[in-house]
C-alpha cells in the first residue's frame, strides 16, 4: 500500500474523532442549523468539481458531466451557507431592558 494512502487514512480517522468531539458540544437548540451547516460543508465537493472541469477532457460528454457537477456543488455550497446564516440571524437573546 502506498504511504500516501496510509497518511490519508490517518487523516480520515482523526477527522472522525474531531467531528464527534466538536459536534457533541452543539446544543439541541441549534441542531437544525447544524444540519444545514454541515450540509453546506459537504459542498466542499465543489473542489473536486472544479478540478475535473479544469482538467482537459477528450470529449464533450465529460465536459457536460463536469459542468453539471459544478452547478450542483455550487448550489449546495451557496444555498447551504445562505440558509444557515438566515436561520442563525433569527436566534436572539432576550433584550436587556426586559431582564
Amino acid at each position, binding site marked *: 500500500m502506498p504511504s500516501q494512502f496510509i497518511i490519508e487514512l490517518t487523516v480520515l480517522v482523526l477527522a472522525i474523532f474531531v467531528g464527534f468531539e466538536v459536534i457533541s*458540544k452543539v446544543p439541541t437548540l441549534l*441542531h437544525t442549523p447544524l444540519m444545514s451547516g454541515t450540509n453546506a460543508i459537504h459542498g466542499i465537493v465543489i473542489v473536486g468539481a472544479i478540478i475535473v472541469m479544469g482538467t482537459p477532457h477528450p470529449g464533450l460528454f465529460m465536459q457536460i458531466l*463536469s459542468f453539471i457537477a459544478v452547478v450542483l456543488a455550487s*448550489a449546495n455550497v451557496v444555498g447551504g451557507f445562505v440558509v444557515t446564516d438566515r436561520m442563525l440571524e433569527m436566534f436572539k437573546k432576550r433584550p436587556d431592558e426586559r431582564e
Partner: protein
Amino acid sequence: MSTTTANLLYLVTIVAFILALRFLSSPRHARLGVQIGAVGMLWAVIVTLSLDEVVTGYWWMAAGMAIGSIVGVVGARKVKMTAMPQMVALFNGVGGGAAALVSLVEFHTVWAASGDVGVERGVSTVFSALVGSISFAGSLVAFGKLQDLVSGRPITYPGQQVGNAILFLGSIGLGAAAMASVSFWLLAAAIVVAALFGIVFVLPIGGADMPVVISLLNAFTGLAAAATGFVLHSNVLIVSGMLVGASGTLLTTLMARAMNRSIANVLFGAFGKVDATAAAAAAGADGQTVRSASADDVAVMLAYARRVVFVPGYGLAVAQAQHDVRNLAELLEEKGVDVKYAIHPVAGRMPGHMNVLLAEANVPYDELVEMEQINPEFPQTDVSVVVGANDVVNPAARNQPGSPIYGMPILDVDKSQNVVVIKRSMSPGFAGIDNPLFYDPKTVMLFDDAKAAMEKLIASVKSV
C-alpha cells in the same frame, strides 16, 4: 501551484470548518462561525482554481457557479422556515450528485491517461460514486415526500426487501466489475442502479421519519465527499467529508433515540406494526370523559398563574401560530407571569426545527428550554399549555408498557398543576395513539385551531 502546496493552503479551510462547527456550540457565536466557514469555502475555491492541473474550462466553471449560486441563493432566501427539512434534503441531494459525477469523470480521465487506477483509488472512486448517487436519489425522494409531491405514507409492495437487496448488491457488483475492467460505462451503470436503490430505499419510509433519513443521507454525502478526497488526493475533502459524516451519524442516532426506535426500525420497519396496536389502544379509551373549556376560562387561568410553560408542536407551525403564541407570552409576561417554552427534541420536522420556528417569531432563545432541563420544573408549573403537540406529551410513554411509544422520552406535562391542551378535535396524533393526558382531571381541552385559539386568548387575557 502543485497539489502539495494546495494541500498546505487547504489547512486554512479545514481550520475554518472546524471552528465553524465549534462556534455552533452557542447561539451567540453561531452566526460568526458559519461566516468563518463560508470564508473557508471561498478560500478553498480560490486555491483550487490556482492548481496546476486546472488549465481549462474557466468559462464553463464561471457559468456553472453562477447558475448554481443563483439557484442556491433564491432557494435559500425564499424557503419558508417550516419547509426547512425539504430544503436541507434538496441541498444534500445535489451535493451527493456532484460527488458521484466528480468520481465518474475522474475515473474516466485517469483511466484514459494510465489505463489503471490502482486499488485504493479504484475503491474510493466506486464508493464515492455509489454512495453519492444513493444520497442524490434518496434525498430527492425525501424532498418529494416532505413537499407532498410523493405520498408521505410508507409505500410497500411484495418482495420489497428482496428487490432492494438485489439492487444494492447489483450496484456493488457493477462497481466492482467497473474497477476490475476499468470500464467507464460499467461505472455509469453502477451509478444508475445505485440511484434506483436510493429511490426504493426511501420510498417505504413514512413522511414523519424523513428527518432521520435526511440526517442519514447527510452523513452519506459527507462520506461520498471524503471518498472523493482519496480519488483526488485532497486532504480538505477527506476532513470536511468526515466532519459531515460524523455529524450526520450522531444526529441520526440522537433522533432515533428521541423517537424511541432503532435506526434499523426506522429504515426497514415501514411503520406497519404500530397501527394495529394503536387501534387497540384507542378502543380502550372509550367511556372516559374530557373537560372542555372556553378561551375565557383558560385566559383567567393563565393571567393569574405564576408560571406558564408553552409546549409547542408541529401543529403550531402548520397553523402559523408562532407569532400569536409569542404575543400571548409577552402579554402574560407584562402581567408578571413567568413564561417558558418546553422543546422536545423531535418537535417539528427535523432535530431542533421548533427552535428555528420560534426564533423566527422573535422568541428569545434563552426562553426555549430543552426537555432534560424543563422536566424537573413541571411540578412547580401552574399551567402548561400544549399547542399542536400530542405524542411528545403522552404519559403512556412512561407508564403503559404495552403502548407503541412506551419508553420514548416525553415532556412530563401531566406533572404540572394544570394542563391546557389546544387541539382542533380529539383525533389522535401522527402515530395514531390515544393520549391519556386528555382524560386527566387536571386537563382542560380548548378545541380550536391553534391560531384562532391564540387570538381569542390574547383578547380574553387583555380583558381580564
